[in-house]
């Protein structure tokens, strides 16, 4: 993985991003703002699934309100995230936080879609206990995604021996 990251960091696109310092800053700033929108939208959907928030509104209404924000902010996050990865592949690929964050992003997106599908298919049935537990876990996952994103830079300090940088 390190060898691949080192090769990637020497490619034209990576060198172009690395050498345009303002672009990296712009990417990071955009990434953090859209992370707020994605995280809160995901949490609002999970809270409604648990009936802890906007329980008087049908799930479909809450989904319609927050899903587009989640979708577009995730799209911006993925685009700026890929560009940041290309700009510093060794730093990203050798960080445990990076891989855990990616895994949680995939689980959270898939989990949110699954919750939405279940609740839209049978709006009055509600969620089973296991699904409610998963919805609660999704709230933690959305928060962890933001937390881990910031921790990529401090991988050794956070993960110690578990860091891929060791």
């Amino acid at each position, binding site marked *: 993985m390190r060898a691949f990251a080192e090769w990637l960091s020497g490619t034209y696109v990576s060198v172009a991003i690395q050498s345009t310092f303002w672009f990296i*800053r712009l990417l*990071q*700033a955009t990434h*953090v*703002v859209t*992370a*707020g*929108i994605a*995280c*809160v*939208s995901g949490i*609002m959907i999970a809270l409604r699934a648990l009936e802890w*928030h*906007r329980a008087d*509104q049908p799930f479909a209404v809450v989904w319609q*309100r927050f899903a587009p924000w989640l979708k577009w902010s995730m799209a911006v996050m993925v685009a700026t995230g890929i560009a940041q990865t290309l700009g510093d592949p060794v730093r990203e690929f050798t960080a445990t936080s990076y891989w855990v964050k990616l895994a949680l992003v995939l689980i959270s997106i898939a989990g949110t879609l699954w919750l939405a599908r279940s609740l839209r298919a049978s709006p009055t049935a509600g969620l089973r206990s296991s699904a409610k537990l998963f919805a609660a876990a999704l709230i933690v996952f959305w*928060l962890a995604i*933001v*937390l*881990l*994103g*910031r*921790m990529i*830079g*401090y991988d*050794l*300090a*956070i993960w*110690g021996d578990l860091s891929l940088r060791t």
Partner: protein
Amino acid sequence: MSIASVLDGIQTSALAEWMRDTLPAMQVVEATHVLAAVVVLGTVLIVDLRLLGLTDSSRGFTRISRETLPLTWVAFAIAVVTGSLMFTTSAETYFANPAFRLKALALLAAGLNMALFQLTTGRGIAAWDLGSPTPRAARIAGLLSILLWASVVLLGRWIGFTKGYDFTIPPGVDFL
């Protein structure tokens, strides 16, 4: 007592030393600060977009505020505590940093904007809470709020670009 001596007192305190010398205290506190700040921005956006009349038009503004702002206040309190802890580590450097000063100004302006809204347009909320377009003053307050809170987050990120943290693990430092 001068500002310089206060800043010096803060950054030589036992708490500041603990924050600087204990791994991974600063890193965890900083990541938590970022998380709290983006949750503040995300939740404020829900309320402000309603104020602008762009979303949730079938739901009263008062109701949206009541449902959402408690989460904002919890996140804000966490951001204040973690931000203060971070400040202790290099109080003098932070204080001299233009991005930090601008962030403090943006925070102050966001607070003033909210207070002004509560004291003026917010008082007549019953007339436009649900079913009527929000008044122009309320829309301006909402737009200002979005711009100011986004500035707070962006300037916070900018402090990291300009302050020059040193997160290299010093030799001999033990993990918690």
